[in-house]
């Protein structure tokens, strides 16, 4: 790295930091100390690698999607298949690392916030594996639209708490998890699921997700002998995107694209396009871009995908946006759902709606390059952060399916 960020106070230039009650500082300091020690501990790293390989199924494949690429101008599109990880998303990468840290700190309970439920499921999974008590906070609205994941967490032995405060989505789940943690910090580790929150969480989660870009880089060099022209990922809090960007930040020839939830369109005000439409502020312990009103009250975000429905964003993304190193664009619900359908029907890969935002982004970027430079043959790598099984209910409603068969064959007349 040309400059090592964050600095020792957790700042990415003016973003990041620690805006939390003093009561949490001791725990954050302990976490940082343990994390640094673990990073330097070959035994810890070996155990993490073994879990990634033998439990989570890494490395994840890099799949060239030829039929889908036809929708993306002249681009060759590759998918980094985080959807094939155990539990169905990239979330397991971070959770396995933090569960090992939990054990290292001698804590016996973990808590987590979750939007779509993917991070909650991953946390509940690691808790089962490590024999830790687990409580997952989930906005009440999300427990309804992601009921399948609620049941999965319960099957895994976790307690799921529906949060009825505020907008009853991811941000409120995060508030409630922070409240729990202030009171339980002696025996509890808070496994934040994204590159957000107070220092050192944005750094820890980035480092545990870095494996996505480390593998991608090796796979690209091995198979194509070159780096991609761009890597693309969806951004809610931004953990899969940070994982996809991390090893490419110092490769200026690789463009970095993040796609935020444009919801019903940024012009409607019903969206979660935090970097595009937000202003600098403080939320959930960090300075970053926040969707907020003139008083600084957090605005409710809107997205068809629960996992992107968040009015803040990780501070490193705010920094990458402010410096211009990465480009962030909104993708609407409609664009994401269209991309979901196209990828599913051209490749037999059904992405999570979150990831479909990045898939739509690849279509947009590929076509844009074809328009401005018809001779270019760009290689785009999309982080396919999760699989779409959990979203079938939403797809049924969106596409007007009714879940019944197309026709009946055989049987009594």
């Amino acid at each position: 790295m040309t400059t090592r960020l964050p600095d020792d106070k957790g700042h990415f230039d003016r973003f990041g930091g620690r805006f939390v009650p003093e009561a949490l500082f001791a725990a954050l300091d302990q976490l940082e100390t343990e994390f640094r020690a673990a990073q330097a501990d070959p035994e810890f790293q070996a155990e993490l690698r073994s879990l990634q390989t033998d439990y989570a199924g890494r490395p994840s494949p890099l799949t060239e999607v030829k039929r889908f690429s036809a929708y993306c101008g002249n681009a060759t599109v590759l998918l980094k298949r985080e959807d094939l990880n155990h539990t169905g998303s990239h979330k397991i990468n971070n959770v396995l690392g933090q569960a090992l840290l939990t054990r290292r700190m001698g804590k016996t309970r973990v808590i987590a916030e979750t939007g779509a439920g993917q991070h909650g499921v991953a946390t509940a999974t690691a808790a089962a594996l490590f024999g830790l008590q687990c409580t997952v906070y989930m906005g009440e609205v999300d427990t309804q639209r992601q009921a399948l994941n609620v049941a999965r967490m319960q099957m895994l032995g976790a307690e799921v708490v529906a949060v009825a405060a505020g907008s009853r989505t991811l941000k409120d789940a995060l508030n409630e998890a922070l409240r729990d943690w202030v009171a339980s910090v002696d025996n509890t580790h808070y496994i934040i699921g994204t590159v957000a929150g107070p220092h050192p969480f944005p750094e820890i989660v980035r480092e545990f997700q870095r494996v996505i870009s480390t593998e991608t880089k090796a796979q690209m060099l091995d198979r194509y002998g070159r780096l991609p022209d761009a890597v693309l990922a969806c951004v809610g809090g931004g953990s899969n995107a940070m994982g996809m960007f991390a090893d490419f930040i110092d490769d200026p020839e690789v463009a970095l694209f993040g796609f935020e939830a444009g919801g019903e369109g940024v012009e409607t005000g019903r969206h979660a396009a935090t970097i595009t439409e937000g202003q600098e502020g403080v939320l959930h312990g960090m300075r970053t871009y926040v969707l907020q009103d003139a008083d600084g009250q957090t605005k409710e975000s809107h997205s068809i995908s629960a996992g992107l429905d968040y009015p803040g964003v990780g501070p490193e993304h705010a920094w990458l946006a402010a410096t211009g190193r990465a480009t962030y664009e909104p993708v609407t619900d409609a664009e994401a759902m269209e991309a979901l359908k196209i990828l599913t029907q051209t490749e037999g890969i059904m992405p999570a709606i979150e990831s479909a935002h990045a898939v739509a982004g690849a279509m947009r970027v590929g076509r844009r390059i074809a328009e401005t430079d018809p001779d270019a043959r760009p290689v785009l790598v999309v982080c396919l952060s999760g699989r779409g099984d959990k979203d079938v209910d939403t797809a049924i409603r969106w596409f007007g399916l009714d879940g019944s068969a197309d026709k009946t064959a055989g049987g009594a007349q």
Partner: protein
Amino acid sequence: MTSFDERRLGRSGAAFAAASAAGRAALVGYLPVGFPDVPTSVEAMVALTEGTDGTGCDVVEIGIPYTDPVMDGVAIQRAGTAALERGVHTRDVFPAVSAVAATGTPALVMTYWNLIERYGVRAFARDFAAAGGAGLITPDLTPDEADEWCAASDEYDLDRIFLVAPSSTDERLATTVRACRGWVYATAVMGVTGARTETSDAAPRLVSRIRTLGAGLPVGVGLGVSNGDQAACVGATADGVIVGSALVSTLLAAEAAGTPGDLGALRSLVADLASGVRRAERA
């Protein structure tokens, strides 16, 4: 009795020192502006200074409701959410500050940092000082991130009250106490705001750790006090007893009973708390 460093007491710390000179702990009461509505909340804050017979809080903390109050328990969340739904704005805090200041009781504002940043740190300090405010309590701003606020509070002569916790290391305790002006806010139990049946024995330990530093500042203890007996208990060791959720709960109950303007229960609780700090057997 502890001796205080008068140069660092500011206006709110002076109220603590006056109580201390009278042989008791100061009573600090919290209410958010805008619940059940802005005018009634201001009336309620004035009632905090009066109780039933003119004896009430020595310092009033005014909250500005926020959408993401991670330090607050259910009672304060509920009142804050209702106030926001009813359209309360940051600027509504200034008339509340003026009304409290007019009673001669120091008015502090306790709020989450994003609201102040959005208003503009220096602009808020200026308008708040002009309204007669004494200082800010900042639950999610520690000295680590407070350079701008420290400069603005120096410029406008405002108290800055940072929080310390039982989990604070000696080093952080020393740094935080050094950065405070007015008094030090000690969170008695690890957790969010909310009335508890018993307050923790962590409080006296934390108070004594702070005093050992020779800070010269009074120590207020908060989180968990809901009646006069608890106030007496906490007031036996602390320089100030902070009460919030229990006071807010009386307003929630009044609204639930269909009489949102009825401040009777609030005044009675204030009287009970005020008598509690006066009967404490001081260490």
